[in-house]
């Protein structure tokens, strides 16, 4: 029972019209990013140098910044630090050609909210932007609900309608992560980073296997699927209308 969906631009509708400033010096890359994100309904502004980017970032109205790390005139990390020192707290996603755990930590320390290593899939970028724009549901909530699914965080119990679902600890964590982000595409890398805390798992398809097990527990025989694979991208938890 494989539940596979093709990606649909309509999923981005909730945060469509969000204004994004892209600071990237390679114009071809920038063009592709703009094309992909415009299809999700975002309005993009492009700056091709650190100085121009900083000047634009100081003007109000942007919901998110995408900042390349290596920029002419002023590098990305300095730009972000400068903004944070000026108390501008717009979410920032860093794009970088420099991989490595330490580099990632440096990027986040400088004030970035997420770090994506080049080369990346455009769908990965879109999913992460969506995640940054829509903060997860209130962390103080003790019971999460998505359609017929219910997750009690205090009693550590999962239910679909009246059926209780037995979950292993990791499955519980996985489901909690998905239920806090309903109707949003979540990529394998995001799950490895956030649910397993591993930046370097040998196989990204480990996530598929775990997700498959979780799906078999959630979607019993005869029930409507809630957990879907999004082809080539990741997963989504949603109630089909």
């Amino acid at each position, binding site marked *: 029972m494989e539940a596979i969906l093709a990606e649909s631009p309509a999923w981005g509708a909730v945060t469509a019209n969000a204004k994004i400033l892209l600071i990237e010096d390679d114009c071809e890359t920038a063009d592709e990013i703009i094309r992909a994100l415009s299809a999700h309904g975002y309005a993009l502004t492009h700056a091709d140098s650190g100085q121009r980017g900083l000047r634009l970032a100081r003007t109000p109205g942007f919901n998110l910044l995408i900042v390349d790390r290596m920029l002419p005139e002023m590098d990305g990390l300095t730009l972000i630090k400068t903004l944070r020192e000026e108390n501008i707290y717009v979410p920032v996603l860093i794009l970088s050609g420099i991989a490595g755990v330490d580099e990632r930590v440096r990027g986040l320390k400088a004030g970035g909210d997420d770090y994506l290593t080049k080369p990346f899939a455009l769908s990965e970028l879109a999913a992460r932007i969506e995640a940054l724009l829509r903060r997860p549901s209130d962390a103080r909530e003790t019971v999460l609900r998505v359609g017929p699914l219910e997750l009690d965080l205090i009693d550590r119990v999962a239910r679909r309608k009246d059926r*209780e679902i037995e979950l292993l600890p990791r499955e519980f964590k996985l489901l909690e992560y998905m239920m806090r982000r309903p109707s949003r595409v979540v990529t394998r890398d995001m799950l490895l980073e956030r649910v397993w805390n*591993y930046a370097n*798992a040998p196989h990204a398809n480990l996530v598929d296997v*775990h997700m498959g097990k979780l799906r078999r527990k959630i979607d019993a025989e005869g029930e409507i699927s809630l957990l879907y694979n999004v082809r080539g991208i990741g997963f989504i938890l949603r109630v089909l209308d």
Partner: protein
Amino acid sequence: MFPTDLLRATSFRLAIALAALFGASTLLIFVFIYWQTAGSETRRIEALIEYDAKVEAGEPRELIERFVTNRVTSDFHHLTYAALFEADGRYVAGDLGQIPAGLPVDGQVHVTRIAPSGESGLAPETVRAVARRLPDGSVLVVGRTSEELERLREEVARALSLGLLPAILLSLATGVVLSTRANARVKAVNDTAERIMHGQLRERLPIRGTGDDFDRLSASVNRMLDEIERLLDELKSTGDEIAHDLRTPLTRVRARLENTRRFGGSIEEFEAAIDRSMAGLDQALAIITALLRIREIEAGRRRSGFSAVDLSAVVAAAEELYQPIAEDRDISLVTRVQPIGKLNGDHDLLFEMIGNLLDNALKYTPRGGTVTVTLEETREGPTLRVADNGPGIPLEERERVLLRFYRSARDQYVAGTGLGLSLVAAIAKLHDARITIGDAGPGCVISVLFKGIQRSSGWDRAVEPPIATVQSGATSSKA
């Protein structure tokens, strides 16, 4: 070029300084000797004439006159003076026409200047003299020239000039010779360095085999050059490996795109070609990433992430991550973990290592097989073993399996970058662990012996909590 080079050479400067020091100390010694000798000679002369004057003063007048006359006549070298004068200063006898001006008549030795009588034209000379008044009022003058002292001074000066100048010249010459030789060696080193900088990396600094300072310095520079050459070779071979292993997937992608562009008709065909091309590119990128990671780990930079790690918890976390895959393939994944205490290591890398070992074992184990992970304390140290009952690895291929990029023939139908075990080897090396590949009969067992690893105690680090403790809390028991 030669003189400036010479002047700049350290050994020549040292030689000049030494020559100056040598000259100064010789001069000092000569002055000291002269001062000592002249002093004692002066004291001897003074005592002598003072004694003569005193003794003669007690004699009768005739004897004094005879003494004076004898002394004057027997002194062929004009070294001494003696004269007798009446109380009113009138000349009686001796070789002085009058009492020297400025010589007090007090029986003490004084230094005065006297023009020798008789032979005119002689310059007045410095004389030590005593004038003593006799009981009858007459005055006796006894003196002696300081000529011998003059001669002594001259001789000392001559000896100094004869000895000092050659000594200084000799030390300067030695300096020139030494620094010329040193210059020649510096030049040889410079020339070699120049050639190395121009790309002849196999050149080495010349060593004479005498074991002197230059040899020792050259030897250590040569060792440094060996290491640099090794690193460059490694870098080059990494580059070659990347190029080699990337050519294959990239060639496939390129051919596919070209053919699709030329022959591909339907949208579906285009889409399929694009999907496969993207997968090929992703594989190429994965290879680059994995290679760079291996290089980073081998460079040992990740030691900064070391802390106290509970290896059994890492094994448990890895088991939890891989158990579903094992189940998917009908493989039973069994772990046997003994508590072994904490080790000093990088938690994330150790997890990655165990993950790669499990991934590798699961890949090669047929359906229905078993993968066993053992962690135990052996005589040699903590040992991690991952055993499968797959086809095993032939003896002659075991070493090569750990080398980058090598994939044995059995690998043909398993996808991946082929770098998993290389990564394992790099991480093991970083932790001073030894890897052996053995026979599980049937199957393969890979052992990691943490031989040189430091035991940790005291300080702790937050690791993934052991699964067993969380499990009871999360699994519902309210059914």
